[in-house]
């Protein structure tokens, strides 16, 4: 069971190493010579919100990542890497971070990137009055100041071991001082937007003044939007695009042995959470929660829904990707439908429990719902599956209200995020309405302590708690699947596909 996961991880790591080697070789050779050349055509979902503060989907982040720069970046192995900040220092109390910015970075309009731009960016994102989606994330920043023309200093209210990761939040691309209208796409990033046709395509060219050496590798980048992954794969097969990510499992599988196309597969910490609202009946009865956990066969779900490509989950958002933080010993109870049925009877549902299961109609969630329905039926749950468009499920906060639902969560480079926003008592998106003071204390400690060993211990305890009694089921972590046309080099697919570095890609 765990072998499977580790095999995946190892395989990917190996591939990553190979890719990195290749890239290094290329870059090494390129420093002297290469001007960007060739065109890369990327198929992706249709983005809509391109204001960094609101952008959230993979496609939207991919656009931001190409047009703008993050202060720091996170690589495929979850290590923090320099981007606009070339180096940084952390004070010994862990409350002051000082960043040195690249001095040769410029905006696409030619003006230089300065510390003021960074200050503006984060002041905007953390402004409590504006109530942007990032305001909570950055609530513990005391100040952001330009300590020099190219030096920025962040002061924190309390320690945060993940602060660098927070600074690399998807929303946190650095924008030019004073920007409020983001339709001009005046970024500092590797690509310059030439034209944008919403719901159709975006055409970009290499930024000739880009400050990172050897980047971008291609002279032209075309982002082509698809409303339908089947059409996207048709385009890939037909040679109209070169790269596609976020492929559904069957389409990914169908690309095996297709000449000229290489498949990409990385494990992620992205998951679908099946959550039972625990502050009211029937979810407020621990026996019901236990029955749910007993009724689910996570391995079977992984096999059926992800065709075995996913990593089996343990009902906790802390997956094997987090290495040391992950505790393989924190296991939900062994699948036992009979015992579950017994528990339901004890909880007052001798004839079974009727529940509506709400789920958005995207990704593999409808499939998950269907498989779940059948598994739960054996334990006496009578599930009525209600599949809705995302706009209905998320609209009017329905997802935070319903008793039983499936919600998708994207992959993050560190686990604290999930705990803060979906499981702590006062978490903003506590959809399961889980509230456990002991749990909250552990979360608080893990999120502030600078002691790595302590943090690992906290996380292990959290996992044990969630696996046994948390009102959530996380049956698997889905893989990130993609495919790229042969001849393109340097592409390294990340768990969150939108953060993959398109500037590193070289055309044949």
């Amino acid at each position, binding site marked *: 069971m765990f072998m499977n996961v580790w095999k995946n991880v190892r395989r990917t790591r190996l591939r990553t190493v190979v890719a990195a080697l290749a890239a290094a070789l290329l870059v090494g050779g390129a420093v002297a010579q290469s001007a960007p050349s060739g065109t890369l055509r990327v198929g992706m979902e249709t983005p809509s919100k*391109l204001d960094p503060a609101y952008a959230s989907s993979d496609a939207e982040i991919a656009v931001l990542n190409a047009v703008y720069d993050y202060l720091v970046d996170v690589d495929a192995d979850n290590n923090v890497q320099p981007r606009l900040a070339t180096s940084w220092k952390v004070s010994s109390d862990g409350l002051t971070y000082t960043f040195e910015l690249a001095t040769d970075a410029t905006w696409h309009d030619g003006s230089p990137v300065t510390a003021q731009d960074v200050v503006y960016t984060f002041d905007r994102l953390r402004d409590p009055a504006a109530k942007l989606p990032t305001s909570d994330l950055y609530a513990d920043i005391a100040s952001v100041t330009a300590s020099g023309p190219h030096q920025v200093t962040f002061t924190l209210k309390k320690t945060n071991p993940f602060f660098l990761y927070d600074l690399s939040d998807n929303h946190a691309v650095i924008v030019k001082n004073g920007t409020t209208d983001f339709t001009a796409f005046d970024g500092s990033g590797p690509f310059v937007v030439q034209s944008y*046709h*919403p719901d159709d*395509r975006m055409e970009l060219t290499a930024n000739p003044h880009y400050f990172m050496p050897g980047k971008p590798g291609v002279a032209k980048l075309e982002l082509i939007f698809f409303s339908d992954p089947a059409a996207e794969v048709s385009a890939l097969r037909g*040679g109209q695009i070169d790269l596609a990510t976020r492929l559904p499992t069957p389409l990914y599988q169908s690309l095996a042995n297709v000449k000229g196309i290489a498949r990409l597969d990385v494990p992620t910490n992205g998951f679908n959470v099946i959550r039972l609202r625990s502050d009211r009946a029937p979810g407020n009865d621990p026996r019901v929660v236990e029955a749910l956990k007993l009724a689910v066969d996570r391995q079977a779900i992984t096999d059926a829904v992800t065709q075995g490509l996913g990593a089996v989950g343990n009902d906790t958002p802390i997956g094997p990707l987090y290495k040391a933080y992950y505790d393989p010993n924190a296991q939900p109870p062994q699948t036992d439908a009979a015992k579950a049925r017994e528990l339901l009877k004890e909880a007052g549902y001798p004839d079974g429990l009727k529940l509506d299961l709400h789920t958005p109609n995207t990704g593999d969630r409808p499939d998950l719902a269907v498989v779940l329905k059948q598994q739960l039926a054996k334990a006496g749950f009578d599930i009525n599956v209600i599949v809705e468009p995302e706009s209905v499920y998320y609209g009017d906060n329905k997802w935070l209200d319903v008793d039983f639902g499936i919600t998708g969560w994207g992959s993050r480079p560190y686990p604290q995020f999930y705990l803060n926003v979906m499981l702590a008592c006062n978490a903003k*998106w506590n959809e399961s309405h889980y509230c456990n003071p002991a749990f909250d204390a552990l979360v608080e400690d893990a999120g502030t302590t600078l002691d790595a060993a302590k943090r690992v211990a906290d996380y292990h305890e959290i996992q044990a708690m969630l696996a046994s009694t948390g009102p959530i089921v996380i049956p698997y972590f889905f893989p990130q699947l993609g495919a790229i046309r042969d001849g393109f080099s340097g592409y390294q697919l990340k768990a969150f596909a939108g953060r993959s570095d398109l500037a590193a890609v070289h055309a044949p």
Partner: protein
Amino acid sequence: MARFLLRRAGFLLLTLVFTSLLIFLITQALPGDVARILLGREASAQALAQLRAQLGLDRPLPIQYLTWLGDFVRGDWGTSFSTGQPVRELVLSRLGNSLQLAGLTLLIAVPTAVGLGVLAALYEESWIDTVISLASLSVVGLPEFITGLVLIQVFSFRLGWLPANSSIAPGTGLVAALPYLVLPALTATLVLLAYVARLTRASVLVELGRPYVRTAVLKGVPWRRVVIAHVLRNALLPTITVIAISFGWLISGLIVVENVFNYPGLGRLLTFAIARRDIPLLQAVALVAVLGFALANLVADILYAVFNPRITLR
């Protein structure tokens, strides 16, 4: 003639006013809070209220309607909720693409369908008629999304003749775009084909049975001339109306076809707008489509009147 046009245009206007009201009401009733959709699941209540006021969503409905219609007529189609881009440019650029596809479709479909219909009628109950009837019937049963998939399999993947995907770049010239247009146009054609061919056949048969055909034959007019100068001259008149009606089908068909082929036309924009609850965009696309349909009908009416001496253009 001027009066005829004026009256027709008057009708058109009336229909459009009704229809726009309908579209406005339907779109206004869309579930889900527009502001939340705009700001995403992460937005706060305060930001939502602020945005609602900013969008005028807190005003009474009639005012909203009149403002919207007035703005629309004046060419201010608003800003797309989801992309923040001006709606008009977006819709107009897509309209061009859709018209291109629709034009090609009609160019293929109409002569083929009319030809087949006439042929089937002239050889009524012969094997030619049977083959044409069977072929058109089997095509009737195939929804666009199935024919599209089949055509892609055959012409793109098996034979490799045509691209499987039609996401053409904006500003692609017609000639360069042509290979990308063929499969979608063919798909859309198949549905129209059967409909137009069957009605053409029926119309030709009706005319063939009319006494004036016998009159012409008894005059000693050669059969070829009887068919062309007498029968077709009258039989193709109702076909004009049929084509106008099938334009409505075409619009429906293109919504599906554009999605199957990822063709950047109005149809795909429409599904995008619906998925994103992008109301200004949705309203504009719907109105433009309805306007197109109404204009097609107007043109058909005028053509019909011009070619039909029985209607006096007063």
